[in-house]
């Protein structure tokens, strides 16, 4: 009973795959996912089945009219026939979703949240910096680097004026 109703729905083509008599047990129930499905995909332009399966009376008469010459079909009728067979046009299925805006918004939000976490950490988690960061210590470090003539050609010591004991202008 269920099988014959399904048969009317999907047409002859799917019949052989959907009804199988197995050793006197009757007909296996046909699952939805085993039947051909409709999908809008750019890389497979012609799906296995039409989009609209239950045709209304106007659509049925339109289908009859389609069997004749197509020159007499009006523009609206052609579009109606297209919409019977397909759900979305290529332009509709390909158009962007604007999802990237949500993604970028989420990125900024979480970067901001991370900034808050970092600030809290600085206040409540980290201890003092070592004594080597004191200004006096740093001054002694710089003096020692200049005494050792670190990078005297193009780098550190090249910028120090040894005659006048000052940075070069």
């Amino acid at each position, binding site marked *: 009973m269920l099988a014959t109703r399904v048969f009317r729905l999907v047409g002859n083509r799917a019949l052989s795959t959907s009804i199988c008599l197995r050793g006197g047990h009757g007909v296996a129930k046909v699952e939805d996912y085993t039947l051909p499905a409709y999908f809008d995909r750019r890389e497979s332009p012609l799906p296995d089945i039409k989009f609209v399966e239950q045709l209304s009376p106007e659509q049925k008469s339109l289908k009859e009219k389609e069997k004749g010459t197509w020159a007499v079909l009006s523009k609206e009728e052609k579009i109606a026939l297209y919409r019977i067979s397909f759900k979305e046009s290529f332009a509709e299925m390909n158009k962007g979703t604007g999802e990237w805006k949500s993604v970028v918004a989420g990125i900024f939000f979480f970067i901001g949240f991370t900034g808050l976490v970092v600030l809290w950490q600085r206040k409540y988690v980290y201890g003092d910096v070592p004594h080597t960061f004191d200004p006096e210590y740093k001054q002694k470090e710089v003096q020692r680097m200049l*005494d050792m*003539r670190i990078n005297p*050609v*193009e780098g550190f010591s090249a910028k120090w004026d040894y005659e006048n004991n000052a940075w070069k202008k």
Partner: protein
Amino acid sequence: MSLAKPAMRGLLAKRLRFHLPIAFGLSLVAAAAFKFAVTEPRKQAYADFYKHYDSTKEFNAMREAGVFESVRPTGK
């Protein structure tokens, strides 16, 4: 309405014909730019530094500053 048959072969060759000379030229430009912006000035800087470099004077200055372990500053 019959469209022209699209190109079926030689697509990579066509692209290479166009892009390889450009790539070659840009690489040469990059190399030349690096040479004249970085290496030549650097060579000149080293040449200038060592033109009037008195190593003994520098050594003594460093010795007085006390950075060596093999020689102590003069005096005391």
